[in-house]
C-alpha cells in the first residue's frame, strides 16, 4: 500500500536524485572528454580550445599510435604480464590458502601469524628492491610477476572462504582414497570457482595497472608495460612514442589527441571487463570486511 508522500519529502527526493546524477556526471565527464578528444581532428582542436564532442570524426590519433612499435610492444608486454601474473597469483594464493583452511594442519597458527604480520610491517621499498636485485630479477619480467605473487589480504579472504566449505565433502573423498592435493583439485577448487573468478579479476586489474614496480625494476624501455609508457607520453611528455617505424608521410595528429588516444587504449580493457568486475566486486569487498 503506497503511502502518500508529503510535499517536502518529494522535494527532498528530487534534490537528492539531482545531486546524485550530478555527481555521476562529474565522475564520467573526464572520461568522455578524453575519449571524445582522442577522435578529434587537428583543425578542431586548434580552433576550438575544448570540445566535449568533436563535429568531425578522425581516427588519425589511433592510426598513429598503432603504427608505432613502442605502443604495440607495451600493450603486448602488459597483456603477457596480466595473463601470466594472474595465473601465478591464483596458483600461489589458492595453493597456500587451502592447507591454512584445514583445521588438522599443523603449524597453521604460526604460518597465519607470519602472513598477518607481513601486512602490518614491511621491509620497505629499498630492502625489497635489494632482494629483487640480488635474485637477478631486475630488467626481467619476473620482477613484475613474482614479488607480488600473493596478496596477504586476498590469501586470508580465500582461506576464510575455503574454511566455510562443508567438511563432509572432504571426509568422504578421503574415505574414497583421495589425498589432500586431490581433494583440493577435485573438490575444493571446483566448488570455489565463483570466488576465485572474483579474485582473478582483481589480480588482473592490478597487473594491467602495474606501474610503480615497473618503474622500480625495469630500466629497459623495450620491456615497459603500458602504464609506464603512458606516464612518459602524457605526464613527462617525452614523446617516447615516435620512433622510426611511425608513418612519416602523413601529417602528424595533434599532440593532445595522441595523448588522449593513449589514455583510452590503456583504459579500455578495464572498461571492457568492468561489467564483470561490477558483478563480482561488491562480493569481494564484503568478503573483505569479514575479519581475517
Amino acid at each position, binding site marked *: 500500500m503506497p*503511502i502518500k508522500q*508529503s510535499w517536502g*519529502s518529494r522535494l527532498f*527526493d528530487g534534490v*537528492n*536524485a539531482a545531486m*546524485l546524477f550530478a*555527481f*555521476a556526471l562529474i*565522475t564520467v565527464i573526464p572520461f568522455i*572528454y*578524453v575519449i571524445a578528444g582522442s577522435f578529434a581532428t587537428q583543425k578542431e*582542436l586548434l580552433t576550438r*580550445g*575544448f570540445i566535449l564532442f568533436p563535429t568531425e570524426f578522425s581516427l588519425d590519433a589511433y592510426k598513429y599510435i598503432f603504427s608505432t612499435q613502442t605502443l604495440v610492444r607495451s600493450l603486448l608486454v602488459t597483456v603477457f604480464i596480466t595473463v601470466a601474473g594472474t595465473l601465478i597469483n591464483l596458483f*600461489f594464493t589458492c*595453493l*597456500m590458502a*587451502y*592447507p591454512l583452511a584445514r583445521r588438522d*594442519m*599443523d603449524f597453521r597458527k604460526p*604460518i597465519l601469524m*607470519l602472513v*598477518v604480520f*607481513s601486512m*602490518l610491517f*614491511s*621491509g*620497505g*621499498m*629499498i*630492502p*625489497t628492491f*635489494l*632482494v629483487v636485485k640480488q*635474485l637477478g630479477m631486475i630488467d626481467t619480467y619476473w620482477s613484475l610477476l613474482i614479488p607480488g*605473487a*600473493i596478496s*596477504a589480504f586476498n590469501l586470508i579472504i580465500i582461506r576464510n572462504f575455503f574454511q566455510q566449505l562443508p567438511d563432509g565433502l572432504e571426509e568422504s573423498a578421503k574415505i574414497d582414497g583421495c589425498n*589432500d*592435493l586431490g581433494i583440493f583439485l577435485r573438490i575444493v577448487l571446483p566448488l570455489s570457482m565463483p570466488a576465485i573468478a572474483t579474485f582473478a579479476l582483481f589480480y588482473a586489474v592490478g597487473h*594491467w*595497472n602495474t*606501474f*610503480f614496480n615497473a618503474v*622500480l625494476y625495469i630500466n629497459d624501455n623495450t620491456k615497459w608495460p603500458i*602504464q609506464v609508457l*603512458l*606516464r612518459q607520453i*602524457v605526464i613527462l611528455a617525452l614523446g617516447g612514442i615516435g620512433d622510426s617505424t611511425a608513418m612519416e608521410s602523413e601529417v602528424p595528429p595533434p599532440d593532445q589527441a595522441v595523448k588522449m588516444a593513449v*589514455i583510452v587504449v590503456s*583504459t579500455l580493457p578495464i572498461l571492457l571487463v*568492468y561489467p564483470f568486475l*561490477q558483478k563480482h566486486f*561488491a562480493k569481494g*569487498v*564484503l568478503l573483505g*570486511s569479514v*575479519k581475517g
Partner: protein
Amino acid sequence: MLIARLMRNRWLYLMVLPGLLYFLIFKYWPMYGIFIAFKDYQPYLGFWDSPFVGFKHFDRLFSDPNFIVLFRNTFILALYNILFFFPLPILVALMLNELRHELSKRIVQTLVYIPHFMSWVVVVGIAYMFLTTEGGFINVLLEKLGGEKVTFLVSNEWFRTIITTEVMWKETGWGTIIFLAALSGVDPQLYEAARMDGANRLRQLWHITLPAIRSTIIILLILRLGHFLDTGFEQIFLMLNAMNREVGEVFDTYVYAVGISQGQYSFSTAVGLFKSIVGLILVVLANRLAKKFGEEGIY
C-alpha cells in the same frame, strides 16, 4: 607418533611450501635487510662486510631540515584526506540509500565505481589533460571567461588541492560500498515504525540510518588513522615535479629519490624504517582504540 602425523599431512605441507617460501623471501628477507639502515651499505662489499655505523643515518635524518618538511607535507596531505575525502563516501552512501528508484540507484552506482579501477597513471594523465596550460579544459574555460591561465601542475599552492580532489574523484564512489552494505542490513520495519510515530525523513535519517553505520564509520576512521602516514604513493609520485616538490615530497617519495635515484641505500632504508615503525605503532594504537569502542578490531 609425530612422524606419522607429519607423513599424514605431507600433501598439505607440500601445498603450503611455495607460499611460505614466497613470504620468507619477499616479505621476511627484506625485513632482515632492514639492518642495512645501521650499516654503510656498499653494494660491492655486500651485506655482511659493509661497516656497522649504528644510528648514524637516523641522526642524519632527525637533524636534516628536510625531515620537518617531509613530516609537514605528509601530515597536511593526510589531514586533508580525512577532512575532505573521508566524509564524502558516507554522504553519498546516505544519499544513495534515500534514492528509492532502483534503476536510478543502479545507474549512479555503476558510473561512480568506475574510476576506482583506473590506474593512478590514467587518473593523473586525465588530470594533466584537464589542467595543462597548453589547451587544458580548465585553462581554456578560464580564458574564455576572461580570466588568466593558472599553472596548476607546477605550483606549490595548487598541489594539495589537486591531490585531494583526485582522490575524491577516484575513490568516493567505491568508498560508498561498505556503508551501503551496512545500510542494507537495516530492518525496514524500523522505518515503518518511525513513520507511524510521525518521524519525518530527516529524523528517520538521524535516528535509524546513521546509528546503523555508526560503527562502520568509527572503524574506518580508526583504520585510516592507523595508516595516517600512507599518503597515496603512486599518485604523489606521479604528480610531483621540480616546481611542487617543496609541498609534495612525502616520506615514500623521498625514500625513492634518495634510495633508488641517488643510491643511498642505507640512509633511505633508515627513512623507510622510521616510517614503518611509526606506521606499525599507529596501527596497533588504532586497533586498541577500535576495541575500546567495542568494535572487533582489525586483527
